[in-house]
């Protein structure tokens, strides 16, 4: 279990340990009788999240071939015909092998760890400005096409709940839980240096030389 998860598990155990749980129920957890019950049907309309293991994925299916049509119609204007991006919109394809370089390109293929991370996002937020408009079949199809743009599936692939587990994202192992308290321990220091803490200081970079600050007609105020 990761350190972070074990941390959380500890917190949860503490909160939900039998005695604490019982106590919560008896004393602290007053039921105010405010808030109403909700039907499964009502929940279903908003319950759109999908997890890495596919839990939450809706019924339906879509092929790479069908996805190409959806993509060209609804996605390519911003993301580019091949996922290369049009203008400053997110690039969603290629970028493999760039993460450790000076110019990392984070795409579905090079960076996203799970199929659900892209599927859930398209389902809730895409197309930009027309969210939650795709049918389930279109959603599966366009996701399949984006995977194919990243050479993760072949052109005959059909995405559905049945094939969900067959999709292996290349960068799934590329992440680990926050370890700052261990790897950056050097920043915890009781008595930071106050005098003669370093050698001569030189200016090594100027924001004015980069010249990308928006012009807001700053007044030049000299010394009076």
């Amino acid at each position, binding site marked *: 279990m990761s350190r*972070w998860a074990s*941390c*959380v598990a500890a*917190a*949860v155990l503490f*909160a*939900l340990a039998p005695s604490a749980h019982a106590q919560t*129920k008896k004393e602290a957890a007053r*039921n105010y009788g*405010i*808030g109403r*019950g*909700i039907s499964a049907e009502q*929940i279903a309309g908003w*319950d759109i*999240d*999908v997890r890495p293991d596919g839990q939450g994925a809706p019924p339906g299916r879509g092929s790479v071939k069908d996805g190409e049509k959806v993509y060209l119609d609804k996605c390519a204007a911003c993301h580019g015909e091949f996922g290369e991006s049009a203008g400053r*919109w997110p690039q969603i394809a290629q970028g493999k092998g760039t*993460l*450790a370089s*000076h110019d990392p390109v*984070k795409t579905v293929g090079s*960076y996203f760890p799970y199929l659900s991370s*892209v599927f859930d*996002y398209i389902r809730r937020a895409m197309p*930009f*400005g027309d*969210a939650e408009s795709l049918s389930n079949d279109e959603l599966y199809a366009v996701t399949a096409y984006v995977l194919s743009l990243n050479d993760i599936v072949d052109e005959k692939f059909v995405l559905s709940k049945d094939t969900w587990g067959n999709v292996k994202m290349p960068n799934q192992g*590329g*992440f*680990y*839980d*926050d*370890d*700052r308290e261990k*790897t*950056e321990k050097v*920043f*915890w*220091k009781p008595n*930071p*240096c106050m005098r*003669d*803490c*370093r050698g001569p*200081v030189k*200016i*090594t*970079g*100027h*924001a004015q030389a*980069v010249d*990308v*600050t*928006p012009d*807001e*007609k700053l*007044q030049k105020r*000299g*010394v009076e």
Partner: protein
Amino acid sequence: MTDTTPTTRRRFLGGAAGLAAAGVTAARADNAKNLPPNVANWTRQLGEGVGVRAYGVPSKYEKDVVRRTVPWLTATPESSVSFTPLHQLDGIITPNGLCFERHHGGIAEIDPADYRLMLHGLVEKPLIFTLDELKRLPRVNKIYFLECAANSGMEWRGAQLNGCQYTHGMVHCVQYTGVSLKLLLEQAGLKPSAKWIMAEGGDAAAMNRSIPLGKAIDDCIVAYRMNGEMLRPEQGYPVRLVVPGWEGNVWVKWLRRIKVGDQPWFTREETSKYTDLLENGKARQFTFVMDAKSVITSPSPQAPVRQKGFNVISGLAWSGRGKVKRVDVSVDGGRNWRTARIDGPVFDKACVRFYYEFDWNGEELLLQSRAMDDAGYVQPSKDDLRKIRGVNSIYHNNGIQTWAVKPDGEVENVEVG
């Protein structure tokens, strides 16, 4: 004598003042007619009565105190950011209209009558709340800072934007009123397998993030007010999640749904975004806490030094790990440090205001500030951060900022080595 009626006079003076305010120089130049021994115009005549300004706004002379954008940063204003004008503010509370904005699908305009919060998943009884129902529950009031994880993100490779509004303006600090998330979860009753929650917005991005249950029941708030009034639309009206000390992205605005689960969701926002890519190509995930950070807000590039002699350095500090315990200031680029004076309240996971008073004779200065918190964390130099993280991580840049003050009083964002 119609031209001496208050209305006509006011119109005339309004026009004159409008001219004066058109340029900052004109607004700052004084007018001898209003100075002793003369009696000022605003003393000779009545001003506007009550009710004219039903919802008050700042003086027209303060009209350059606004959120600003960096247009080249993003493809579209609906998924973009505007920055708090830190250089024009003081104290610890950010006025509601100046709190930075970060939207992923524009500002949702939600009719409070149609607002609903759904609470479901691994709970005994799924519940749905109206806004009025949330307001009927016991309330808490807390002052917290909110910092975007990408604040100072453009500065990883060196000094880039010349103004603390742009380098540090994705932070604000307000008082929230709302319901403790723990209390809400108790209403639904957690199942023993519950370990994480997912918060989701009702905006056009339906922003969703996973939060460990330990944090959710520790200090999170389902908030509907900021600084006493209802949340501004830009800040999630009518309801947002408050996640004290953690990166702004998890403070889901326009909150419509909380789902309880037994594992994180690994949403796009917590994988493709808001993960910290290190030099070796691996990325840290779930880096929720915002480390201690500070910045001198004045002087700064947008707020130059105007006079020799006595000067006040003013700055802001905060830590997601607890209270800011101390802030030190250096005027020589970090060789020597003096402890600054913190003035005003010091709250857990809130901004504090610090001052450092000094005499300036026109020599060049390299101003820095460094915050320390009660967890013992000391804000690192940018180079010390880069040694561990490289320059690709975008998020969580809390390195020490350097402002160069030049002999003419101008201030520039610089990198020192």
